[in-house]
Every structure is written in structure tokens, then in C-alpha cells.
């Protein structure tokens, strides 16, 4: 296609070049060709309208957006899928988390969307009310690979997949937070894994005093919400009409969290050191952090040399266990041109074997119960010193809850994060910063 554009340009240049020859002769005959030359020039901008349209070839081609990056569980299953479905070709576009969200927003406003998207479940609230995604039940009819949905997924997962009466996503991997800690250092210093906030502070201090790294403190909603939930607080009220994180439970939780660095127990990780905390893991500044199961894959990828040093545990609490519940969903945009083929791909991605692949390739936690119960997933993991890591996350899942389903979630997330940044980086007063953020959010919610 580009060569066509160039040849057009060349044609133009040649036409102009030819008229040169006439110079020095009579003015009248040469003047004439000058005008028509503009016509091809103008069409040059409009003509390719039809050109790039791909001719309809026999096999349907579906496009899949994949945000997993290098350790993708999607790319390894493409060949097997195409072998099983000779009439469908799969084109995977490998993206990263940020640009997937960006492209998703843009493509929704007018582009040709892909047919399958790996979607962070926290993005669903923004798009669901707009009718951006197809109701998967029209293809699934309540079943996934012949298994009723209620049996395929846990109740929590099922709830997260639904919006009103529709099933908008098939949960592909799940995300709940647990505590990652340096087991080797804990053993060396004779420390016990903290189970309460007080213990977390104490252990963090001891680690810090020994110069062995601290607990990673980050301003984002995922990490801060963990503490609010554990303290019995919430982000929004039950009917999602007002912010509640500035109530006593929330203020207390955020104060505790923000105090960790001041007590020498926490290390404030800021983005100028890297968007990911991996450099801090490598150089030993961070010995504890909280994150989801997908981080197991990142650890293995980014710091393979630390094999045997890390373990996971249930995150320490103050009053009750609690975590956000998210993960990756597979969705079909409402404007997809091949939703049927896309659904076949989703079903294929959610077979037991391929769900185990999510664990083995991406290091993330599969969502399908059958896969979660399989031996392959529950085998002792040598990277984690032979620990059966998934058990920990499964336990956390029992009490985890999805972020509120509101169209304004994006704004809420941004506003809350900004308040956390004021507190952690700008030394703002906790109560005041949270109150301001809550006022902004209330205003946003009331104007929806």
C-alpha cells in the first residue's frame, strides 16, 4: 500500500517535470497543463480511501489485543487455536498495560476495535455503562466449554464479570493482593511473617535498622485501598453516591500507611526510580511489598537470580482481611466484526489446559476453578522456595471485593491517587487531603 502512495507522488513529480521542457516556448500551450496537474494532487489525499481495505479472504481474521507483554499466555496458544480452527486466523497485537488503555479509549471513539481484548477488570466500570462490550451470554448461553458459568468460576469472579444482567467479561486471571517478603532475610534475622499492622511496623523497622530493605509504600489506589479495606473502611458508600474513604476508618488506615516510612519501616517508592519497583527489589531497598499473583511472573522475569529468596503470605491486617479483587477479563467489543470467532477464541483460552498456561507462562493466577484446583497450578514452586503460592492468593480472594462499578471510577481513582501523592510526597495532612479528595469525588458523582 505505501508503494502506491509513493508511485502517486512520483507520477506527480514527473508530470511537473515534463512541463519544464516547454519553457522558453510560447506561453499559451504550456499554461494549460498546469491547471489539471492540481487535480491528481488533490485526489492524492482522498483516493486511498478504498485502497487499504483488505480483500475479504476466506478465513476470518480476528485481532487480539494482548497487554501481557513478554510473558504472555496468549501468544503460545495461537498456533494450537488456528490448528483447531482452520477457518480463523488470529493476529495478536502485543501491547503494554498503559497503551492498551489508551488505545482502547481511542478506538472506542471511532476506530475499528479488535475482536478480543485483555482488559484490566478495573477498566470495566468505565466502559460497561456505555455499551462498549458485547454481552457474552449471547454466545455462551450460560456455559463455558460445556460447563455452566456458575460452576466454572467462583461467586466473586462471577460477580465481577457481570454488569446489570449481562456478562461482559470472562475472567482470565484474577488479582488479589498478598504480602511478598524476602524469606531469606527473615530467616537470617529471625523474623516472623507479620500478620497484623503492628507486627508489620515492627518487622519493617527491624529490617530497616539492619539495612535489609523495607516495606514498599506506593500512592496508588490499589495499594492504599488494601489498608482501608483491612481497617473496615471503604472507598464509596454502598450505593456509590458518595466518598467514604475520609471517614475515621479510612483516615486511620491511610495515616498508618503514610506513617510507615516515617517510622523507618516503609520505603516510599516513587516513579522517578522506575514505574515498577523491580530496581528496588534487585538492590535490596525493598524486602516486603504487597501485590497480586501476576507479580510472581514479573519476579521470575525481572529478577530470575533471586529465585528461592521470596515467599508470599496473607497480607497483615488491623481488623479484617480485605483486598481489591480484579484481574484480567477477556471481552469482545460491541463493534467487533467477528464476535462469533472471537468467542471461540475466548472459549479456547479458557480451557483447563490453557488456563494452566496462564500460570505457567505469565505467572498469574488463572480464574477457572478447574484450573485452580489442578495439580499443575498447585505444585510447589521452586522460585518461591517450594511454596504453594496460589493457596495464599486463593485465601485472600474469599474476602476480596471489586472496586465500585461506577462510570466515574477513573476520576475517583485519579483523585484519590493525587491525594495519596500529596500525603506521601508532599507531606500534606492526611485528613485534609482525603477530605478535599472526597469533596471533589462527591461533586463528580452528583453530576453524573
Amino acid at each position, binding site marked *: 500500500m505505501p508503494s502506491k502512495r509513493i508511485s502517486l507522488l512520483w507520477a506527480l513529480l514527473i508530470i511537473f517535470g515534463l512541463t519544464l521542457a516547454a519553457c522558453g516556448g510560447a506561453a499559451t500551450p504550456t*499554461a494549460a497543463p*498546469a*491547471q489539471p*496537474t*492540481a487535480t491528481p*494532487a*488533490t485526489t*492524492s*489525499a*482522498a483516493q486511498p480511501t478504498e485502497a487499504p481495505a483488505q480483500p475479504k479472504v476466506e478465513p476470518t481474521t480476528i485481532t487480539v489485543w494482548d497487554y501481557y507483554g513478554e510473558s504472555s499466555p496468549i501468544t503460545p496458544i495461537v498456533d494450537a487455536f488456528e490448528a483447531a480452527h482452520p477457518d480463523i486466523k488470529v493476529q495478536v497485537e502485543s501491547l503494554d498495560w498503559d497503551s492498551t*488503555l*489508551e488505545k482502547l*479509549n*481511542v478506538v*472506542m*471513539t*471511532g476506530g475499528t476495535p479488535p475482536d478480543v481484548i485483555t482488559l484490566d477488570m478495573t477498566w470495566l466500570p*468505565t*466502559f460497561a455503562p*456505555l*455499551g*462498549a462490550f458485547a454481552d457474552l451470554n449471547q454466545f455462551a448461553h450460560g456455559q463455558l466449554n460445556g460447563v455452566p458459568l456458575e460452576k466454572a468460576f467462583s461467586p466473586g469472579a462471577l460477580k465481577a464479570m457481570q454488569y446489570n444482567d449481562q456478562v461482559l467479561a470472562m475472567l482470565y486471571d484474577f488479582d488479589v493482593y498478598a504480602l511478598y517478603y524476602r524469606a531469606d532475610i527473615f530467616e537470617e534475622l529471625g523474623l516472623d511473617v507479620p500478620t497484623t499492622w503492628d507486627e508489620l511496623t515492627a518487622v519493617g523497622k527491624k529490617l530497616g535498622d539492619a539495612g535489609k530493605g523495607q516495606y514498599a509504600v506506593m*500512592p496508588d489506589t490499589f495499594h492504599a485501598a488494601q489498608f482501608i479495606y483491612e481497617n473496615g473502611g471503604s472507598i464509596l458508600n454502598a450505593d456509590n453516591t458518595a466518598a467514604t474513604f475520609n471517614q475515621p476508618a479510612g483516615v486511620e488506615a491511610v495515616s498508618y500507611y503514610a506513617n510507615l516510612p516515617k517510622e523507618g519501616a516503609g520505603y516510599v517508592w*516513587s*516513579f*522517578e*526510580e522506575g514505574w515498577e519497583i523491580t530496581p528496588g527489589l534487585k538492590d535490596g531497598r525493598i524486602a516486603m511489598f504487597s501485590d497480586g499473583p501476576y507479580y510472581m511472573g514479573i519476579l521470575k522475569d525481572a529478577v530470575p537470580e533471586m529465585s528461592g529468596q521470596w515467599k508470599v503470605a496473607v497480607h497483615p491486617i488491623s481488623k479484617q482481611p480485605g483486598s481489591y479483587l480484579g484481574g484480567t477479563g477477556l471481552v469482545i467489543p460491541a463493534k467487533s466484526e467477528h464476535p462469533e470467532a472471537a468467542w471461540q477464541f475466548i472459549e479456547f483460552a479458557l480451557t483447563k489446559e490453557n488456563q494452566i498456561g496462564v500460570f505457567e507462562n505469565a505467572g498469574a493466577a488463572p480464574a477457572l476453578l478447574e484450573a485452580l484446583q489442578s495439580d499443575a497450578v498447585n505444585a510447589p514452586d521452586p522460585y518461591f522456595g517450594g511454596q504453594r503460592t496460589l493457596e495464599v492468593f486463593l485465601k485472600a480472594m474469599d474476602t476480596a471485593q471489586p472496586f465500585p462499578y461506577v462510570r466515574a471510577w*477513573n*476520576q475517583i481513582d*485519579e*483523585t484519590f*491517587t*493525587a*491525594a495519596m*501523592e*500529596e500525603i506521601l*510526597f*508532599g507531606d*500534606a495532612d492526611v485528613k485534609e487531603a482525603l477530605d478535599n479528595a472526597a469533596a*471533589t469525588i462527591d*461533586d463528580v458523582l452528583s*453530576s453524573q
Partner: protein
Amino acid sequence: MIHHRSPLRRRLRQYGIGYAFVAVPVLAGVIFLLIPMITTLGWSFTRFNGLQPPQFVGIDNYARLFTHDRIFIKALWNTFRFTILGMLIGPTLGLLTALMLNQKVRFQAFYRTAYFLPVMTSLVVVATIWRMIYNKHGLLNLALGALGLEPIRWLSDPHWALFSIVIASVWQGFGFETVIFLAALQGIPATLYEAAALDGANVWQRFWHVTLPALRPVILFIYIIGIIGSFQVFDQVFVMTSGGPANSTITLVYYLYSKFMDLRLGYASAIAYVLFGILMVFSYLQWRFFTETD
């Protein structure tokens, strides 16, 4: 008769040729500028998410921006601060450097290259390089440490972040100003200085009464280009801070972009037009200022 008709025909033909020569830019302008611009203007009076049909809301978006939206006010304020800081530091440094280079120095080509090299690099590259330099353990903090000072969180301290972006931007841009000032300085006729010297003017007076007036058009050019560019600052913010921490580096265009990315197209369009309005006012003021003082 012939004498009367032929100029008209020639003129008509010239019209045709004129239109033909500007046809592509005009067509491109209509498709890629005018239509999008009008579309955005239309959207700015609606609530629109790109998926469902837009709902007309009158001037609600504009009203909300100025009465309810603290982040917008912050973005506005940050953009002004970025522009003022950058426009104070950049051209001043550029003029000083150009004045030095204009002293018939040797190795002028080397110096000029050194100042100009960053201009050639993309903002993504610049932002990446400075992200490393601004790192908590980066070069700058090592230098501070060597002086016995506390390290600064250049990008994650809300008090520093915007300033850090200004520094990186000035580093990237002032070579452009240097080169242009230098060319303008070299274009000032030596006779003007000789005349001033005969009148007994000292160095400062010569600068004030000869150099500066001669540079006026170039200064106008640099400030128009510079302010328009500064008001549209985006890439550096995008790569270095994403508008954070605590919105301390959020700028108008970044905010507009983030609203687009939240599928609030009507609201984002209103921000776009506020920005457009500000740029128009600025350009008009500058034009008035520089034409009147002539």
C-alpha cells in the same frame, strides 16, 4: 480589443494557477484542520462519550471548568507557571549565550553544536535521559551529595516536579534561541555600533540602544513560537510524570488528553477551546505590543 481582453484572460488563468497551487494545502486544511476543529467546537457544547450520541448541554462544560473543576484550575496555573518560567529562563540564556558567541570566539562551531544538539532530539529521548538524571540516585543527587546537600526527589516532590520539567525543557530548547539570536546579532550592521561608540556610549548603553532594538523582531518571533509551544507542553509531562505527583505537573493539554482518555469528549473539547482562546489572546496582545511600540 485584443489588448483589452488578453490581460483579463491572463489574469483569469493566473487565478486558476493560484488556486491550483494552494489546492492541496487548502484541501488538507479543510479535512485535517477545519472539519476536526468545527467538530470539536460542536462537541464542546455536549456531553459525549464517543459511543453514544452526544447530548446537547449548552455551556455547561465551560461553566463547570471554571466553577467546579479544581484540577482544571491547577492545570491552568501550572501551564502559566511552565510558560513564564520557561520563557524567562530560555530566551535569556539563549541571548546571553549568543552575546558570548558573538565576541568573535574561536571554536564557535563546537560551542554552537553543543548548545544545539538537544534541539535535534525528540522530547521522548530528552524525557528519558532526564528521568535517569533526576533519579533518586542519579547524577544530580550525587552532585548534591558531594556538596553535602540532601537529595531532592526531583520528579516526585510536588514542589519540585514542575521546575524539573522546566529545566529539562530549557536544556532541550534554548539552543534554538541561541542560534537564532546569534544570527540576528551578526546581522546588526557594525556601523550602528561605531556611531554609538562615537557618541560615547558604553557597553551597556550600546546593548540597550542598539542591540536590543535591532533584535526586536527576533524577540517577537521567539516569544510567539515559544509561548505557543509552551502552552501546548505535553510529551515531557507524559513521559516524565504523567501529570503527577498530586497533579503538580498537570498541564492544560495533559488534562485535555486525560479527559479524552476517559471518554469525556465534550468536556475535553471545551478544554481545547479554552486553550485555543488563551493562545489567541496572547498572540493578539503580543502583536499589539510589538506593533505599537514601533
